[in-house]
């Protein structure tokens, strides 16, 4: 046996030699048979509930447990009934375990799909203290009180008891497995694949399709959830042509591997069909290993872009409901066959079969061939054919079973009405097969009823671009699967203009479907299970019917039928059939429930990929980042940017000390702040000026070359969208700055205006945010400092470069740069920009040159303090509900031109006499604190919403004013200067008196900026 690891996604585990006997299985594996697609020559150690066992490479946890005579693997959700496996695949509702330990503990893993690896540790779940003795099994005794929907009818009195007593008890009992609550140590990848034809499922139809398309040269992806290709052929004894089924699979897969245009992906579940041919698939790269190899993912989420898709997902056998049909040892007949043929295991050495169709008899035939005693085949059909060499009880039904922790006896009602007890340790049940229509429902397609096979088949065109072949389409025989797989592949490629023809199909089994629908045994008062995980019984469906929860959706929601981790793959059909019976309608009239993605549950880690922890979002670093790291910076996230909040100097123990120092230094001398994060948009073209006149509410057409202007941008609804400054570098060339937060939205908006509203304007836009390192140099000594940086031919005097001037200059001996005389702080200030690769050097140069002025670097906190002191609105004020009028800029909105938002800002509700105005606040008692988020009340009025007068948007401690100060919006605030109002913040226990003041706390006349 070779186990190859993922190389190009085309690995499979194929046994190189098939064992002939079970001789090496040792004494513990008492249920191990001979043969199978496992390596009986070597052994694997594993443990379940602390007990050590051995299995073989190729085993699943379920097959290995059965081999060790462990039938009891789980407890059910509600009644804590003892349970074993029902299936041998991903449809399993019962045998869910906690796999692995520590941070890798994985709840609710199906034992039927967990590949055995050396050292595997599994634990049963939802039981206490042990699987055999579960206290909560008491629920089973009280099941009569715990019927469908019982909780809707009780727990209402006394009123307080629901949340204090009842619900905590219910919640404690809830859930199946548990999370470790530690961070998942494994990595996950996400990727993208493209193909002409995606073949979902690698059974006979899928292999046939992939071979057809592969030979035609199409780009093909073949995916199967199993670790072996072959689908049902792995569990059957059919031959194909001259070969055994397994040999045909091996030969076919080998040919597919040899084709460079075919990607064979085993352990890959295609689990969702999304619009326009996009499918999600999960490849389990490392789940069969103790831990993933270094750097490799546990799983990969593939998004597959396919031009055509062929669903070859096979069919799922359905059980029959009868009393106590849920005991460990009772499983689907096909699962029993799989375990025997593929894994060389039987759940017991004496078994029985209960069926309503010919296919069930195959299990008897195969098990007898494997040396297992089949006590009887019980067939509901009176005219059942004799197929297996054992006792046939035609027209008989299993009416009850016994065996507390595992099946011991079944009770059979014979055709003549007499009853007989049969001893057996396992019972294979077949109620027929349901085509696996799951994925055809993902776009809300409805399956249609096929009377001939008594099952739903996919509706036409359920998913655009997807067709269905083989058993998934109701073509159950192997020959039909091979035939339809190839034919549908030819058709799909034909749609794409790739002409090809069907491959030569080998001879294969072609048995007709011979079934007499039979859903549940009518007998005494016991419970017959439909949804085994959620403990939904036939009685519950009857009760739902009685209480008029009759629509399929009501049935599902009231009883929880089909809401377990298998989405009802083995149970929905039975529930539906019984409801149909009760209402007297046909099954198709009764309806279908819809399956939702994903086909089988997908780990959150897989969906999340590598976007975790620090890698959740990419980081954006500013040009001075490295210097900041070296100089005591504390960083803060602003969108994806990391900006410096403040720089701590030795001895500073509280952030306020650092911020106060930075503010004082700027106002006293000079400071530097990295403002690269502000959005920059290069705007060029002969219509650039009229364009700006349109996107800004205030006038821009007449801005002089070499000048910068503040601009207020409105949304079409008249509320402020963003603000910033725009500089006119030349007649047809502007540079706009946006706020850091809105850079992307503003750019998008301007492209909308350009392309959708004024498509003939000659304007070109491109973002230059990152191309330039831009620093604010602010403070009374900023000019003196910059004179040491800017090359001497550029006149920086107040006359030569006045307030709001801009110019392309050179610095440090000839490096191209841009200089803007703009100020956010209210001080004499500039912003200087150089190509980003020189940003680090320039920052260091400025700090060096500024030493004589005691220059400081300052962060966003100091920036914020100074802009509040100066009364500049920022993000906290531009909250999306604020107008120009609210900001005190109502008159800026030009009525002489058409600009975005100007018309709508004239609406009544936005121009009320007592509209909010932005004002400043200062505490009456200087020790009091102004709190952002506090609400404002007129003095003497009640403190409630009705009397709310506004709110504080921004607040800080001003080291210049030695007081806490704030900005905010107050009704009619412009006319309330000097008024004392109450600032209340009950959520922070604050109620102080503040004075309404001019928002420009510092230099309201604007002398400094023009100095």
């Amino acid at each position, binding site marked *: 046996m070779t186990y190859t690891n993922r190389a190009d996604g085309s690995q499979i585990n194929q046994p190189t030699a098939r064992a002939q006997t079970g001789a090496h299985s040792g004494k513990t594996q008492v249920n191990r048979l001979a043969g199978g697609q496992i390596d009986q020559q070597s052994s694997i150690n594993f443990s379940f509930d602390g007990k050590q066992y051995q299995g073989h490479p190729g085993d699943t946890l379920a097959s290995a447990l059965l081999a060790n005579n462990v039938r009891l693997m789980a407890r059910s959700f509600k009644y804590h009934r003892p349970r074993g496996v029902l299936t041998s695949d991903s449809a399993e509702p019962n045998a869910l375990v906690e796999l692995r330990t520590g941070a890798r503990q994985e709840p609710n893993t199906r034992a039927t799909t967990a590949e055995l690896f050396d050292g595997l540790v599994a634990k049963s779940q939802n039981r206490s203290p042990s699987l055999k003795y579960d206290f909560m099994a008491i629920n089973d005794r009280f099941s009569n009180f715990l019927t469908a929907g019982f909780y*809707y009818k009780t727990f209402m009195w006394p009123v307080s008891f629901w949340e204090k007593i009842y619900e905590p008890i219910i919640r404690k009992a809830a859930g199946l497995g548990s999370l470790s609550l530690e961070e998942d140590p*494994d990595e996950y990848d996400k990727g993208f694949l493209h193909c002409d034809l995606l073949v979902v499922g690698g059974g006979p139809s899928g292999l046939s399709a992939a071979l057809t398309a592969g030979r035609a040269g199409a780009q093909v992806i073949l995916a199967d959830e199993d670790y072996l290709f072959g689908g049902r052929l792995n569990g059957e004894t059919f031959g194909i042509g001259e070969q055994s089924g397994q040999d045909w699979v091996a030969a076919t897969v080998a040919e597919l591997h040899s084709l460079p245009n075919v990607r064979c992906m085993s352990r890959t579940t295609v689990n969702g069909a999304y619009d326009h041919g*996009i499918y999600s698939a999960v490849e389990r790269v490392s789940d069969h290993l103790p831990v993933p190899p270094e750097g490799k993912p546990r799983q990969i989420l593939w998004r597959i872009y396919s031009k055509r898709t062929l669903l070859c997902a096979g069919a799922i056998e359905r059980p029959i409901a009868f009393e106590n049909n849920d005991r460990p040892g009772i499983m689907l007949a096909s699962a029993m066959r799989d375990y025997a043929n593929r894994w060389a295991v039987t759940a017991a050495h004496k078994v029985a079969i209960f069926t309503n169709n010919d296919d069930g008899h195959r299990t008897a035939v195969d098990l007898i061939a494997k040396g297992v005693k089949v006590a009887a085949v019980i067939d509901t059909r009176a005219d059942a054919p004799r197929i297996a060499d054992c006792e046939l009880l035609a027209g008989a039904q299993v009416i009850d079973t016994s065996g507390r922790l595992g099946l011991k006896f079944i009770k059979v009602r014979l055709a003549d009405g007499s009853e007989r007890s049969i001893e057996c340790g396992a019972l294979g049940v077949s109620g027929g097969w349901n085509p696996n229509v799951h994925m055809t429902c993902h776009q809300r397609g409805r399956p249609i009823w096929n009377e001939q096979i008594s099952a739903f088949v996919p509706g036409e065109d359920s998913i655009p671009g997807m067709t269905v072949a083989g058993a998934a389409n109701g073509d159950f025989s192997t020959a039909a699967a091979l035939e339809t797989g190839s034919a549908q592949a030819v058709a799909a490629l034909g749609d794409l203009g790739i002409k090809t023809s069907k491959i030569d199909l080998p001879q294969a089994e072609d048995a007709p479907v011979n079934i007499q629908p039979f859903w549940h045994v009518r007998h005494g008062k016991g419970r017959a299970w439909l949804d085994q995980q959620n403990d939904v019984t036939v009685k519950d469906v009857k009760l739902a019917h009685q209480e008029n929860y009759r629509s399929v959706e009501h049935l599902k929601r009231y009883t929880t039928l089909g809401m377990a981790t298998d989405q009802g793959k083995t149970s929905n059909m039975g529930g539906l059939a019984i409801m149909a019976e009760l209402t007297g309608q046909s099954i198709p009239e009764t309806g279908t429930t819809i399956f939702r993605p994903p086909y089988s549950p997908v780990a959150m880690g897989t*969906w999340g990929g590598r976007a*975790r922890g620090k890698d959740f979002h990419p980081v954006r670093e500013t040009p001075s980042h490295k210097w900041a790291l070296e100089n005591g910076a504390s960083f803060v996230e602003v969108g994806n940017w990391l900006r410096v909040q403040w720089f701590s100097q030795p001895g500073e123990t509280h952030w306020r000390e650092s911020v106060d120092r930075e503010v004082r230094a700027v106002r006293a001398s000079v400071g530097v702040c990295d403002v690269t994060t502000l959005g920059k948009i290069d705007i060029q073209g002969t219509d650039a000026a009229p364009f700006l006149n349109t996107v800004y509410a205030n006038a821009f057409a007449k801005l002089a070359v070499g000048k910068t202007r503040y601009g207020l941008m409105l949304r079409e609804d008249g509320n402020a*969208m963003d603000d910033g400054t725009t500089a006119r570098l030349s007649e047809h060339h502007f540079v706009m700055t946006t706020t850091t937060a809105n850079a992307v939205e503003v750019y998008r908006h301007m492209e909308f205006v350009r392309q959708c509203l004024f498509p003939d304007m000659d304007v070109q836009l491109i973002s230059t945010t990152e191309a330039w390192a831009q620093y604010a140099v602010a403070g009374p000594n900023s000019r003196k400092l910059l004179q040491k940086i800017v090359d001497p031919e550029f006149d920086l005097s107040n006359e030569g470069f006045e307030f709001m001037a801009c110019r392309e200059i050179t610095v440090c001996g000839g490096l191209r740069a841009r200089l803007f005389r703009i100020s956010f702080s209210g001080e004499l200030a500039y912003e200087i920009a150089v190509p980003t690769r020189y940003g680090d050097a320039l920052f260091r140069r400025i700090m060096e040159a500024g030493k004589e002025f005691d220059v400081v670097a300052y962060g966003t906190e100091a920036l914020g303090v100074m802009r509040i002191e100066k009364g500049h609105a920022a993000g906290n004020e531009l909250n999306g509900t604020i107008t120009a009028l609210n900001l005190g800029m109502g008159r800026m909105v030009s009525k002489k031109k058409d600009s975005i938002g100007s018309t709508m800002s004239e609406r009544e509700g936005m121009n009320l006499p007592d509209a909010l105005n932005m004002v400043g606040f200062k505490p009456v008692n200087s020790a009091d604190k102004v709190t952002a988020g506090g609400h404002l009340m007129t003095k003497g009025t009640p403190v409630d919403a009705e009397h709310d007068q506004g709110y504080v948007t921004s607040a800080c401690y001003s080291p210049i004013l030695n007081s806490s100060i704030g900005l905010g919006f107050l009704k009619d605030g412009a006319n309330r200067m000097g008024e004392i109002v109450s600032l209340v913040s009950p959520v922070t226990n604050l109620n102080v008196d503040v004075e309404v003041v001019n928002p420009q706390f510092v230099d309201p006349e604007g002398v400094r900026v023009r100095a």
Partner: protein
Amino acid sequence: MGYSGFRVIKEALTGHKGWKPAWRDPEPQSAYDYIIIGGGGHGLATAYYLAKEFGKKRIAVLEKGWLGGGNVGRNTTIIRSNYLLDGNEPFYEYSMKLWEGLEQELNYNAMVSQRGILNLIHTDPQRDAFTRRGNAMILNGADAELLSVEQIKKEYPFLNFNDARFPIKGGLAQRRGGTVRHDAVAWGYARAADRLGVDLIQNCEVTGFRIENGVCKGVETSRGYIGANKVASCVAGSSPRVMSHAGIRLPIETTVMQAFVTEGLKPIMPGVITFGAGHFYCSQSDKGGLVFGGDPDGYNSYAQRGNLPTVEDVCESGMALIPALGRARMLRMWGGVMDMSMDGSPIIDKTEIGGLYFNGGWCYGGFKATPASGMCYAHLLATDTPHKYAAAYRFDRFRRGYVIDEKGMGPSPSLH
């Protein structure tokens, strides 16, 4: 026939033979005083309160599919009254008070569970905004609490406090927020309304209105014409379709919002949490599944399903916030059709057509509003005046400039 623990025991001992249908399946009559279009949560609640609080008779609810099959049956079951704006907060707080007495009112256990909702804070501006909101809540009589990181760690120790890209800096909690078993809300109202004589008519799709001289006289349905004195649309995501039959254009677009649930897990999540730096919110159901979601897909859709980018975005956010979720498996995803209004707030109002009323625009927040929406709509229908808590929810607020824009996103429905 009342529901009670005693009754459950009695029925259990007598073979459950006594349980009666939760509601009748009446044939539609030729005319009613009130026709409510839409048998979702809001429609059923409206019918119930119209009968119960206003004593009205001859009421029918017309449902095109099955009762409770709209968004009341496909949401993430959260209730809260943590709104900011004056037009909204009193309404949602009123709704919260109605939730608090709902089960006794309806004699149906909808499992109102006030386990708290916590909005996480990751930035200083967010803290300022949440402070303002918390204050607005308290000033409106609701409860709110700002939590420190240490307090949050105690309740949610498994959140990412180690290497988060956007560290948690605090949170705004509403302890009275929580979850309710969504289907049970619909069933509880349906059963209670039925018991007051309301005709609940399933599989009855409204295909048109009969309007004469500007007055609505009744509705054309898949089961024939039904006359009515007053017709009340209450169809959430189908609002634009239904109202178009009356020639009315709405300030509403219909988009898809996805939601997700994991396999059942032993309890970890005490209440509801929302991530402030990504698109993710989550709670744990009484069955053990983690129920979560994020933002709408962002495009118009009536398809009741979404696409992968949103699925991945939500799960990435979930993993960023809760690294321990890695090995929990998502079991199912689904999509609801959302009536996204232009300012993110609802409309409960008369229309320009006499006798025709409208309730919609709930965006993806309609579930928590169910009781108050029903009560306020019933008030409007019964009295022709708006209920005091729904006075702001008028059509003309857009034209007149009184929008109620909680998020400040402007007239882009998919952004609310």
